[in-house]
């Protein structure tokens, strides 16, 4: 299901993106992402498994969300990135500020 979440603890959750983020659904992505950014010392694990396309608009949203969450003492990490997503992160230089991995997102305890 797109834009779902799976809490890991009070201070961490997995945000499951579930599919490509394009202009048609960018508002839902932005709204959900910014919800977590307001929390203090919160770790947001963004599960990008299956995501092939992240528009430059969505990349900008992700960069800003990372900045906000870090300002609140938390962090944002990307999991499950495939080849295309890695290319997007690289060419957008988002990989310079966000830690990403092709491993699956952490599971609930």
């Amino acid at each position: 299901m797109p834009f779902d979440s799976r809490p890991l603890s009070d201070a961490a959750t997995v945000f499951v993106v579930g599919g490509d983020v394009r202009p048609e659904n960018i508002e839902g992505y932005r709204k959900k992402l910014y919800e977590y950014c307001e929390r203090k010392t919160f770790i947001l694990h963004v599960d990008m498994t299956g995501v092939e396309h992240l528009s430059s608009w969505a990349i900008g949203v992700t960069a800003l969300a990372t900045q906000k969450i870090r300002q609140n003492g938390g962090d944002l990490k990307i999991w499950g990135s495939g080849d295309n997503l890695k290319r997007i992160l690289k060419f957008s230089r988002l990989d310079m500020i966000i830690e990403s991995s092709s491993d699956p997102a952490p599971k609930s305890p």
Partner: protein
Amino acid sequence: MTDLRGEARTEKLARFDVRTLREISSKFRHKSTPAELFHIYLLTLMGRMMLRRAAVYIPTADAGKSRLFLHKGHAAGELPETIELLQIPPNRRWMSLSDILSESSQAEIEAAGFSNLHAIRWKDSAGATRGAGVTIQDSALSILVITGSDRMIEPNQADEQFLDLLGRQAEETLERHMGDMLRRLVDLGRRSDLARGEGRQSTVGRRTREALLDTRNFQTLQDIAFRFKSGSSLFDLFNTYLLTIMGRLRLKRAAIYAATLPSNCFRMFLLKGRPERGSMPDIIEVDEMPKNQLWVNIKDHRELNRGNILGRQGYSLAWILSRETDTPDGRQTRADALVYMGRDEDIRLEAADIKFIEILNHQIVGMLNMLDSFNARESGTLWDWDSNLSTLIQDTPADQCARKEHLQRRVLFRPAHRVGGDFYDFHDLRDGRQAVVLADVVGHGIPAAIWTYAIREQLQKIATSDDHDRASRPADVLENLNAVLLKNQKSEIPVSVFYGVFDPRDWSFTYSSAGIDYPLLLRAQDAKVFELPAGGLFLGCVPNIRFSEETIYLEPDDLLILYTDGCESAVLGGGWRETALQHIRRGPCGRPVLDLLHELLLGAIDARPQEDDCTAILISPPAEIAARREQPEPDLRTLTIPSDVRHLPTLRVFIDNVIRRLDGLSTEDAFAVEFTVEDAAVNSIQHGYEGRPDGSVTIEARREPDRLVLTITDRGRGFRYDIDRIPRFESDQDLYRSNGRGLFMMRQFMDDVDIQSTPGGGTVVRLVKRLIQRPPQRARRAPEETGHAI
């Protein structure tokens, strides 16, 4: 204790009532006639209140009377056809007969075993509350429900509440769906002011006559009205009409002569039953139409029966089917048809028969008026109309083969009914261009047929107008057609339309689609099947919709297939495409490939059970005229989309098509192209037009020997482009930026990027991706996996 038990019972009953009312509400919604509605109403009421009998009386022309419409259960005696009212039922509460009825009616009703009544109020479409008013005039339009049982009926509060809610549901259903129908039934009673001896035409304000229609007639007429609406031609209509009259009057023969030109000539339209001797004349000339007559005995009116030719064939009565029309000389009655009736003995019409036929005529005249309103041809005759409807059949023969100078085509047309909702057309435009139309109107029968006719007329008008350029812009044509359809108040039927224009000068095919999904392009050179981007919204439902428009360039032996959803499974499934590709790969083998594919598709369609209209058009430019192309552009495709992100899926299919046709583009490069083109188009929409959907973005894809060149153009606000001002995303401050990455990433992904933009002058983004050089491919090769491609 007793009270507590009583309360518990009441509560249980109330819960039960809620469930019942919910179910009934749903049942009411699915009823289409007052008879069906009251059938359910009476049965529900009888079940809930444990009643033995119930009946519905509806208003009559006489304000102080109501007429029996429907009754259920076993009446102890015969219910009176009409009852006289003293005063108005003020609400839905249970009342005794003496509250409402005259003494004589009360006695008749009581004798039949009924003891109570309540009223259903009904607000008609004009907005006035009918019935439950304060004067006796209003009572003429209230509906009375009379109930009875062998025991004393003593309704409690829950019963009253149930009755109130049930009544409200019935009232809502009447208001929403069938108030007009009920009012028409009431009005028909009022207007049926006929003399017994001769059928003089009704005039407003003349004395009202005693209601003569019985319940059975009402229901028959309702059924017939629905059968009229589902007919597929005027012959169907009049066939039903004649058979109904023959059954009702027990006639042995009946014939209709329809008006034609000159106006005193009536031509044989339909004949039922066998004339007494020999055959009927083809033409009847009427010197002078009897004035102000509905029906006549033809023995007394020789002008309708020259030389007693019809009398000798066993006909004795004639009914004049006429309509009032506005003419320069004022409003006049025009005879549409003469209906002759006969049986072996004399026909003696009872007043109820006359009324029955008058209502039947009223219904058929209503259908003719509806047809006229679509046709906007006031002077049309039945013959005009039936030829128009027949055109839909005759102009779209089962299968058509044609070959214009520049374009071969085959058409498969399998309507599910005699008159289908699918149609196709070809229009010759200026400079040898040809427009191709494929459309699918939802539904069948006359409503779909008249809508089909109106759309064809409109498209014909556009194609033959002096504005030739307009007819060559498919998106404009569809937008214009949508506006025309929406102007018509009767527009409730969604329409799918594909409109394409083939230009023989450069073999371009420019098209737009409203609801016709993914036409197929079989490329002969590549032996690949491409699903072309299409599938905009239906026409006739939403105002101001816009469409994308694509131009492709056909090549020798390419095959374009347009199809309606009725044959989608045949075209897309069952291996037809793979077989078609094999034939295309082999090339001509004694028979034109188009003929082979036409036969194959025909077989695939006929092998499936047909549930919907099924139409497919196959178009192919013949190889032998390839040399005559003036400006061949085989490696170019152009798509124009409205500046609305909802059209991005069309762009994605387009780009997918472009990429899959290319050799020499790696997976990584293909992804780079997909990403960058979409991002550039989104930039045009988001920044160029600032989200306004009234602009357009054009994407051109051109394959050059060693590279792919993509150009994205908009006419938005533009900007002052300075390459040195694009962030490099090296500093921490830049890396966290939420904007500016689009242009930066374009340069990362593509080999060359050129941007031309000026404030107020729009933007042109030119993207280049170099192709890996590979050995030239063979002209024809083995079929590959089907996918989106050029």
